[in-house]
């Protein structure tokens, strides 16, 4: 009776559990705007009778305030085929508004500016991590052309997606006052389409990366040693690593998780209301935005260590060949196997 009273024909148990998830999520993400409470008891809606025994048409009429206390949104029966229209009211829209306009702006600004600040400090304190032994002049192939293609496919599409995505959230604060409403609108329209279509390139890149590097990114015992030995930041110690060190493995797994999450939530948004209802759409947008902001911060760190932060690292993805001394310092176990392979092509060794 409880759900029937409020949701009519269109509602169902699935919808109800989504409400619960949605509200749990929203409470965690931004425990504000508690103008609604799901809690509350529902008076049983049975037909009531006047003293003379005739049905009382008004006694069973449920008031709007009672309904809103009981369920987060009011649904009913509608004549038109558009099922979205059967939701009469969803006051949670104002909570989503609060998330998007207040919580997300602060969260995004703090995470992204915070990450840039952390990297700036790292550069000021640690400086560029040099190759200790200097360059040897000998090169070792680290990534072949296809691996580099897959990486750059993912990387370029990520940067495009990040910039066009950030435009939707921060553009009206940062860019709109500078270029004016009409120009900003045209730009955002184009950015929306670019964002939608680039997503496919990103997903293809992600799939290739996972297929190529999953094997070498499985955590092993050497990763613990690598962390114990100061993760390569302490010059007096040597942190052993195979093809990928624990830091790179962390980036791999976090990027895989975040990539899958933004892709799934993003396709829910790209195909609106195909598989979910209004609550699902709101949750998808919240997840998409929050994970994307964290993903941008992660990739900022990845870009830093691959370019400014470490000498000799960029060429692995640039030309594909790294200096022998760089490989000795950062990926000794992998280098040992590579050299062994070169000398004895028939015997294939495994890392660590």
């Amino acid at each position: 009776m409880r759900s029937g009273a409020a949701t009519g024909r269109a509602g169902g148990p699935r919808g109800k559990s989504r409400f619960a998830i949605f509200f749990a999520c929203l409470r965690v993400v931004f425990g504000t705007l508690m103008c609604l409470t799901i809690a509350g008891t529902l008076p049983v809606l049975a037909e009531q009778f006047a003293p003379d025994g005739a049905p009382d048409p008004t006694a069973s009429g449920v008031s709007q305030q009672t309904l809103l206390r009981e369920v987060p949104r009011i649904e009913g029966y509608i004549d038109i085929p558009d099922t979205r229209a059967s939701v009469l009211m969803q006051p949670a829209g104002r909570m989503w508004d609060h998330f998007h306009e207040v919580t997300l702006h602060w969260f995004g600004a703090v995470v992204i500016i915070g990450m840039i600040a952390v990297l700036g400090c790292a550069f000021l304190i640690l400086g560029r991590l040099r190759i200790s032994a200097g360059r040897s002049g000998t090169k070792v192939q680290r990534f072949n052309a296809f691996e580099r293609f897959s990486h750059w496919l993912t990387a370029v599409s990520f940067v495009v997606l990040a910039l066009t995505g950030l435009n939707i959230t921060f553009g009206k604060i940062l860019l709109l006052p500078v270029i004016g409403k009409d120009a900003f609108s045209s730009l955002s329209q184009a950015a929306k389409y670019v964002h939608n279509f680039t997503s496919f390139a990103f997903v293809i890149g992600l799939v290739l990366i996972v297929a190529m590097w999953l094997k070498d990114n499985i955590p092993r015992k050497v990763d613990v040693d690598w962390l114990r030995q100061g993760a390569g930041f302490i010059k007096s110690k040597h942190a052993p690593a195979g093809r990928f060190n624990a830091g790179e493995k962390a980036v791999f797994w976090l990027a895989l998780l975040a990539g899958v999450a933004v892709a799934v939530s993003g396709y829910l948004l790209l195909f609106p209301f195909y598989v979910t209802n209004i609550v699902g759409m709101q949750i998808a947008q919240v997840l998409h935005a929050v994970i994307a902001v964290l993903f941008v911060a992660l990739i900022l760190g990845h870009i830093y260590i691959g370019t400014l932060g470490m000498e000799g690292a960029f060429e692995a993805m640039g030309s594909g060949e790294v200096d022998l001394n760089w490989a000795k310092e950062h990926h000794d176990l992998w280098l040992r196997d590579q050299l062994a392979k070169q000398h004895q092509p028939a015997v294939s060794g495994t890392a660590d």
Partner: protein
Amino acid sequence: MARMKFLCDAERCIGCNACVTACKNENEVPWGINRRRVVTINDGKPGERSVSMACMHCTDPPCAAVCPVECIFPTEDGIVLHNKDQCIGCGYCFYACPFGAPQYPRVSNFGSRGKMDKCTYCAGGGGPEAPGSAEEYAKYGSDRFGEGKLPMCAEMCSTKALLAGDGDVIGQIYKERVVQRGYGSGAWGWLTAYQEDVKV
């Protein structure tokens, strides 16, 4: 300035959908777009009520707040209008709207949305078109408000369930009805839209 609002008296609404038809006819709304709709709660059960719903022209409108290109704005009469030239069809206003008002024509591949369309309170559009012009009519529909008239949906309502006009006036009318007949399920959407209710 009067603050324009809608009020649907669910005890009077008979779910005839005349308001929906009147809106479509007056504004030549494209196929598949419903600026106004009638939702029946507890359909076929005791306590069944029908409510006619469209854009409520909220105070502090959430659609305007979330719009990434800031194309939605309230007028000095409290009517929420938007500029279709600037709309990018992102769909965020639909997620924020408590009343499911924004509508999107399907224009391209996937579920991609065209320029948002919604109830304009029959007050034309928020774009650069001249009020009452043919260009404005083609994009946004009728500008009855500019001619001193109220929205067609409310004007056509046969049971006078749907009221439009100055919020204080229609609030007072509803209040008198509730007092006189002794019951009322509330001014649907008012607390959410205007952050105030009709106190009876």
